[in-house]
């Protein structure tokens, strides 16, 4: 009965997967090992705090991200208002700001003697004991930090989905008496639910796995607990077991989501694309729409850039030299190469899941996706163990070929780390390609490779570009795997920033941080333009 799975469309992807999920398996295999005494300590004293803090954090972030991401995406795809054309792509900019950088900005601004509080004191001539802004080093502060740096995940997928949404359904809603808001929350949002949820999954996993920001705010979460167990108790095995629990939670989330839309088909029979008429807002409404879209950009992008520039210009201007150029180039080409390879992989996998209804592959694909919920460095250790294992095999048979500490090894690690981003984007793109198209194509003797290249790829263009964009911005920010797997004397911008930020030398870290943001911006701007022109109805504009 396995025969139907054994053909070109499944052997290659399955082979890829056995390779790619090994690091995740290495992490999870810890569950089957021994349980040390440290567990009773964790259980008695800290696990409760870790869990409650993590739950508060993720819940808060998901609510805020959904509100920001979906509402802004709806506004820019359906209305024309003040500066809309700029806001539409500027809303993606916070993607270039890693959460920990925004966390540093927040403490720099809002600590008792931070820039913002000092400014208020100077302006109103108040005493030193007066504090206007509340401290940011707490769970609500962290919720804001994560929400305003991660909402683009939801914004991007929602916008992509709204763009491809059949307008005739929405118009039918209007004729049946729904008002504009009713159309939005009774029709438009439910119809793109899979896309929103896919975005939220990424946000949840990224929030759960983040270490930098919560560590800076000194909030005890599951992730800080993992590191405390590893670094402080010298117990990496228990740390991996804790990380596996995160994995299991992620798997539960994904399964629940899959199950909930088991029988629903979210692709549109009509898939009618027509010229989109943007409703022109004027006066107060136009201004309000502008404010709603501007606030996330201001908090997630403009504020950190202002603070970083202030630090950089005051303290360190000698950064932009030869070393900077080579470092930036390293970040840039690694990101581009990874993004294309990763997106291609995701397309082939998702195609073969769809085309062959291959359930083994579907399971493996989801499995690799949840790897995203593991803190980067734990996953990086899994990758490293895989690479060193292969290396020792090479050395055994006398081949002078070392993956650990090579760029190939680094790219493999990046692909494993960012596969979730690519796959969820491609998957939600595929959900909107009607399956009947495949049947039609097959009846016209177009199947297999030609079906993918000449029918699916053009329809998936927006998803393809979005995926490349997400992976590029992820790789440029990626730190833990880079630190542990890089070759000798090899730096990326993220490494450069970390070296200073780890010591909280934010004035020194400011210039490379700005560089990360700027280098991250290049592909974002280019790709956003391409995504915009890939909108089917706008071609004749």
């Amino acid at each position: 009965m396995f025969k139907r799975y054994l053909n070109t469309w499944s052997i290659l992807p399955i082979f890829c997967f056995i390779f790619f999920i090994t690091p995740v398996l290495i992490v999870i295999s810890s569950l089957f090992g021994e349980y040390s005494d440290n567990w009773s300590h964790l259980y008695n004293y800290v696990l409760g705090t870790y869990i409650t803090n993590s739950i508060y954090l993720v819940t808060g972030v998901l609510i805020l991200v959904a509100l920001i991401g979906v509402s802004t995406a709806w506004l820019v795809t359906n209305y024309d208002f003040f500066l809309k054309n700029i806001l539409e792509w500027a809303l993606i900019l916070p993607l270039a700001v890693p959460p920990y950088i925004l966390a540093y900005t927040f403490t720099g601004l809002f600590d008792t003697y931070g820039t913002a509080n000092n400014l208020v004191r100077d302006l109103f001539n108040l005493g030193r004991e007066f504090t206007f802004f509340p401290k940011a080093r707490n769970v609500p502060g962290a919720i804001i930090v994560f929400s305003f740096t991660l909402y683009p995940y939801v914004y991007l997928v929602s916008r992509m989905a709204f763009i491809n949404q059949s307008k005739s359904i929405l118009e039918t809603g209007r004729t049946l008496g729904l008002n504009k808001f009713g159309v939005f929350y009774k029709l438009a949002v439910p119809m793109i639910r899979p896309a929103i949820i896919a975005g939220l999954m990424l946000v949840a996993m990224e929030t759960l796995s983040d270490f930098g920001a919560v560590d800076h705010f000194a909030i005890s979460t599951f992730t800080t607990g993992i590191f405390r167990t590893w670094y402080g108790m010298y117990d990496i095995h228990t740390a991996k077991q804790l990380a596996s629990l995160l994995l299991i939670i992620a798997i539960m989330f994904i399964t629940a989501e899959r199950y909930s839309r088991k029988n629903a088909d979210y692709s549109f029979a009509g898939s009618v694309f027509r010229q989109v008429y943007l409703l022109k807002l004027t006066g107060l409404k136009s201004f309000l729409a502008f404010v709603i879209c501007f606030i996330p950009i201001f908090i997630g992008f403009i504020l950190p850039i202002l603070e970083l520039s202030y630090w950089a210009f005051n303290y360190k201007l000698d950064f932009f030299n030869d070393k900077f150029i080579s470092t930036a180039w390293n970040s840039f080409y690694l990101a581009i190469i990874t993004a294309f390879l990763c997106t291609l992989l995701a397309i082939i996998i998702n195609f073969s899941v769809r085309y062959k209804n291959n359930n083994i592959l579907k399971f493996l694909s989801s499995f690799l996706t949840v790897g995203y919920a593991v803190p980067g460095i734990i996953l990086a250790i899994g990758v490293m163990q895989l690479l060193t294992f292969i290396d020792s095999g090479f050395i055994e048979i006398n081949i002078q070929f070392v993956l650990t500490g090579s760029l190939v090894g680094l790219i493999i690690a990046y692909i494993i780390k960012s596969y979730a981003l690519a796959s969820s984007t491609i998957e939600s793109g595929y959900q909107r390609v009607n399956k009947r198209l495949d049947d039609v194509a097959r009846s016209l003797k177009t199947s297999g490779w030609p079906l993918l290249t000449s029918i699916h790829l053009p329809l998936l263009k927006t998803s393809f570009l979005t995926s490349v964009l997400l992976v590029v911005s992820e790789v440029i920010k990626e730190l833990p795997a880079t630190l542990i797997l890089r070759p000798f004397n090899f730096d990326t911008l993220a490494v450069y920033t970390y070296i200073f930020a780890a010591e909280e030398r934010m004035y020194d870290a400011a210039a490379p941080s700005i560089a990360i943001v700027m280098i991250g911006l290049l592909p974002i701007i280019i790709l956003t333009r391409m995504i915009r022109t890939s909108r089917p109805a706008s071609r004749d504009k």
Partner: protein
Amino acid sequence: MNIKSISIALIFSFISSMVFANEVNVYTSRHYDSDAELYSSFTADTGIKVNIISGKGKALMERLNSEGANSPADIFITVDAGNLWKVQKDGMFQSISSNVVDSVVPANLRGPNDEWVAIAKRSRVMYYNPLTVSAEEMENLAYEDLSDPKWIGRIAIRSSGNMYNQSLVSSLISNNGVANTEAWAHRFVGNFARKPEGNDRAQIMAVANGEADIAIANSYYIGLMLSGKKGDEQRAAARKVNLHFPSQAGRGAHINVSGAGLMKNSPNKANAVKFIEFLLSDKAQEHIVNNTYEYPLSANVAPSDLIAQFGTGFKEDQTSVADYGKFNPEAVKLMDRVGWQ
């Protein structure tokens, strides 16, 4: 050139080949700018190229672990004796036989069998606000005294996730035992002026700003702040505080080290020993003390003036730094139990 040959060329450029050259491979968790200058100066003197991978101590240790016998690493450098202890315990170091090491580094600042050595020292000291705390109150004040109720709401210290605090508590466990240390820590945490936040410099700033009266932080931070490298605001703050060496009537001030260990499978062992000897040379020690404001190992080298002004002949705790690693897991659990965030 066709696509095939381009891709082959690309693939080869991406694979790090094993080159046997005149070099030394260093894994380090010290990431000071000034260290890079130090390495260039070693290359200039000896012609030996220094290859660096920097990262978090524990992550580098995992890489060393899984590379095993195939590891290209010659030397592991870290800023905490606990990490060195752990690598030695896992059997990944070998003895460094060198007359230079024997003559420069005191026995309590070396690992068992000379498998690792300190390259610079720092002390975990107290900083106080002379406007709110008198010199008499500070006289002979020990870490143990900070559990006294007179300090309620007056102490600033960073979170217990920080390894400097873990080492300090480990040294207390090593000297006073777990039960006494836990009783002390319980009252000590009750004296905090605020929930632990920020790094060591933030604690000194808190004293300067009047948020706390006493801060515990490493000795070199005051040098960094006074040097003006961190901006005028920090220099001004640093001038408002005084440095106190704790426990001068008792064990002495807590000492920790930056140290280097020689890897068991070091492919360039001779170069590695030369490199360690270089780090202990007067020239290198001079460079370290004037850039990172740590204390030197070499008796011929004086600490930076910015640090020396607070006193140089202070009594150092002779507890073996290797104990910090041994008691570190217990210290972390103890801090969890007393609610030290």
